[in-house]
């Protein structure tokens, strides 16, 4: 069976910006190898050499001019905002002196 070590779980959690408790690390260390083993069944599919099927949407459609249909009204924005002061959104201060190199 594929092994996924607690260090790998913590590494994946770091990449995913997830905070996990040690209980969760242990539980995921139990679950993930079983799911990966199930997914490994893919290797038994006898595949033809035909290419992948591309986008169902023609690329030119994605580049077409978009029609502007308006956005939120000020009152809608105010209603959704976590905080509102002097006609400005108030959000958590996240760019402090602390380094954010993670």
């Amino acid at each position, binding site marked *: 069976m594929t092994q996924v070590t607690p260090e790998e779980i913590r590494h994946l959690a770091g990449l995913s910006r997830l905070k996990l408790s040690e209980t969760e690390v242990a539980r995921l260390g139990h679950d993930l190898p079983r799911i990966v083993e199930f*997914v490994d069944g893919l290797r038994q599919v006898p*595949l033809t050499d035909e290419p992948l099927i591309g986008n169902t949407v023609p690329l030119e459609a994605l580049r077409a001019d978009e029609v502007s249909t308006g956005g939120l009204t000020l009152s809608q924005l105010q209603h959704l905002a976590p905080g509102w002061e002097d006609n400005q959104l108030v959000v958590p201060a996240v760019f402090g002196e602390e380094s954010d190199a993670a």
Partner: protein
Amino acid sequence: MPRDRFNAFLHPDLEPIVGSSGPLTGVEIAVKDNIAVANWPLTAASKVLEGYQSPYDATVIARLKDAGATLVGKTNLDEFAMGSSTENSAYSPTKNPWDEERVPGGSSGGSAAAVAADLCDVALGSDTGGSIRQPAAFCGVTGLKPTYGTVSRYGLVALASSLDVVGPLARSASDVEKVFAVIAGRDEHDQTTFDYTYEPVEVNWSELRVGLPKELWELGIDPEVEAATQKFADWLSGKGATVKEVSTPTAHQALNAYCVILPAEASANVARFDGIRYRASIGDGSLTDRYRQTRALFGQEVKRRILLGTYALSVGHYDEYYQLALRVQAQIRREYDQVFKEVDVLMNPTVPTPPFKFGEKAKDPVAMYQSDLLTVPANLGLVPALSLPVGFTDSQLPIGAQITAHKMRDNLVIAIAKAYQAETDYHMQKPQGTTNG
């Protein structure tokens, strides 16, 4: 909608919204709580979205309002539609109205239970791997997963965008049809939609060819489920259809590919819940700290799928898993192209088993995923599939059969279900203790 004993509805204080006059005037419709209704809560059954209200209507909601529907409330689901039992809701599971010790299926379990318990006429669900059809089968109602691209996803909280589709659940295929006809069609807000107008058809029984995909029928189906579904096959044959065994060699491995594609897309889609853009926000340190602490609010299944997606897309695994899964999906789509030259529809059980008990599969994620074994192929193939009630077990648990057709033949699966329901009453039976039950 007041709080109900099955916990089918969330947000019990909502006042119904009565649409303008149209073909759905008087029809009471419940909405899965991952679909945006302006000024109503939108939680996707997650603590991460607690307190959030949608500022706009999803396209399907705008169309229902224009057609005169009455929106009665929002229904429970597995968090971010990740699950097959509604046990993953952050707001407690929904109970199956046929047996309150059993799950209603998922992820649209609240929608299916609301219809089964007669709390609404129709409910909207979303289906990424079976999330409309599996709960429809478990609750004894009819549910349609439309052809991908016929119904706009604008305003649907994204799970796996290349597979997600919104569709109706109702007691009868006739009500499913009425709602599908209204919500289907191109939408400028969703570029995967295409020009489509629903046109009903009549079944030409003498020319109808029905395929029983042998690889799916061999997947350890519960004997009572198999017997009821076989009886439905016999009914089709009795109407004059040609019923024969066919082969879709890769369909039984669709779930393996789905278990890669879904987490890969889902992990990217839920990256937006970062503690900044929505109301939930925890932490007083750096941006990363706030990001990580806020996302600790996710439930276990969401975390599991985020990690799986990150694993599948990481260096070293991308070709090994993700590219391989996409090649398997492409092969399934080619097999559908082939088999639908040979037959008009495929038919098999919707779920391998009757509804299971709460907690029965909670500790075994693979066993839980396998409850979608028979529904996932239609999602990877982007084709329409409908589940309809075809019987009950000895202990009065509903059994569903699934009819699948080629792209844009949604009208054919609906027509077959309507014809069956004109001659049977499984879809009209109601659980004890509900209205008329």
